[in-house]
């Protein structure tokens, strides 16, 4: 075979593999949009579920997801950022710091249902928060900690060393240098990480199973100790637990979830590009 022909075969093969990856993504989107779009209406977004969830909307689930995600990020962002600062700026490279890094990477790989069990044991039972927004948000928060820590560390590492040196050479302390020089430069990366974390938290079902999610709760929560519905869990419930659900309600719910998660990720990407462009050094 001529090298030229070989090359062409290789290219075609690689292209086919790539297509194989893109195809499912495209198909999922197309199927969900095609089946879900008819269900989408103002009423679907703002009404409570009715007739055994076979009619009406998913408003309580949207609100529930909003509260959970908000709670998770309020909890996880400061802790994650501070942890990353500590790891990146204050520890030297040794066995201990490598162990922590390894732990964080592994934390990201734990199945989300395990986080759910852990959240139930710790927050629901041990701290006696009950199945509540608080327990669910904390569980989600712990789940997205690795995302936030890793992206913050990356952002901190990308701040040029000489910025720190200049600051130190002016007699500015390490903490002030981090606060006034390093963090502002790392801000875009940190925010992007936080938003990606939000996206992850918004789509998860398993961590909510035992910690917060209500099967059917058509009223809005009154405190952080209330249960709530959440979109991913609601989708799970109407898809598996309730017979004779109209197809379009299921796909409509899925569509809302997909739009939410993809929208959040897209927003993170655009924000990153925008902020990156603004700061050239």
């Amino acid at each position, binding site marked *: 075979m001529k090298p030229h022909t070989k090359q062409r075969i290789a290219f075609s093969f690689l292209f086919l593999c790539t297509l194989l990856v893109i195809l499912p993504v495209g198909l999922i989107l197309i199927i969900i949009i095609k089946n879900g779009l008819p269900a989408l209406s103002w009423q679907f977004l703002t009404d409570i579920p009715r007739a055994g969830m076979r009619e009406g909307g998913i408003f309580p689930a949207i609100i529930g997801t909003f509260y959970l995600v908000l709670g998770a990020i309020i909890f996880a962002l400061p802790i994650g950022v501070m942890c990353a600062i500590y790891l990146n700026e204050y520890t030297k*490279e040794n066995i201990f710091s490598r162990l922590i890094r390894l732990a964080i990477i592994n934390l990201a790989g734990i199945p989300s249902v395990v986080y759910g069990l852990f959240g139930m044991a710790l927050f629901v039972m041990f701290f006696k928060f009950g199945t509540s927004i608080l327990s669910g948000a904390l569980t989600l928060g712990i789940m997205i900690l690795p995302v936030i820590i890793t992206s913050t560390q990356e952002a901190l590492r990308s701040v040029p060393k*000489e910025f720190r040196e200049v600051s130190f*050479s*002016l*007699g500015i302390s390490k903490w002030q240098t981090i606060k*006034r020089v390093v963090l502002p430069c790392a801000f875009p990366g940190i925010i992007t990480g936080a938003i990606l974390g939000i996206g992850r938290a918004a789509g998860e079902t398993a961590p909510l199973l035992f910690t917060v999610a209500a099967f059917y709760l058509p009223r809005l929560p009154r405190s952080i100790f209330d249960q709530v519905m959440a979109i991913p869990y609601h989708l799970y419930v109407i898809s598996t637990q309730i017979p004779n659900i109209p197809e379009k309600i299921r796909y409509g719910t899925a569509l809302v979830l997909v739009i939410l998660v993809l929208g959040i990720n897209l927003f993170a990407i655009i924000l990153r590009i925008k902020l990156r462009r603004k*700061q*050239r050094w």
Partner: protein
Amino acid sequence: MSQYKINVTKLNLWYKDFQALKDINLSIKSNLITAIIGPSGCGKSTLLRTFNRMNDLIEGVRIKGEVLIDGENILDSKIDLLSLRKKVGMVFQRPNPFALSIFENIAFSLRIQGIKDKKKIETFVEKSLKSVFLWDELKDKLKSSALSLSLEQKQRLCIARTLVTMPEVILMDEPCSSLDPLATLKIEELLQYLKKDYTIVIVTHNMQQASRVSDETGFMLLGELIEFGPTKEIFTNPKDKRTEDYISGRFG
């Protein structure tokens, strides 16, 4: 007060196992410009960075010996690093203003020192910009980004930024190596003004520059200070064969 600002005795420095400074002895006089020359990798920057303890930031550095500034051993672990670094300012090779406005670049360290008085900050900014001859050029665009300045202006701004901490010594590590010849001459002219008020130590690759600007020169080679003395003597009548070889361009 003695005429010596910095006294170095038996200074040795290691990066892990590699010895970068070997038994350095030298005295730097107040209100003069002292140049440190030598081929790449001979330890010029390392020596300079011991004067404001910037080497502390690097892992695995070990230092032995004594560096006295105004009679105080700055290698002492009890020394207040923050005030040392205010007293001994540093200008880097690449002009590196913060990604802030011209005004804020200079106000930066004032604000961190907790100065809130707007008038006071403005006075400081004006004064330090005047001492680097940037005030007339920039006084109408203090709010614009420092990154939009020319390289020479940036380097002047960086010098001005150092001046606000009211240093007594200014360390410069190849401050002109990213500037064109004209800008270089202008910065050198500035140094002549600054030396009235400050003790300046400048590291340079450029021997013409050393002979143009400095009063005293030290020649380093492989971590050793080979020769130190008045610039004129070093350049016209070097005592060491290696110095002579270097300044006549036979190596380096």
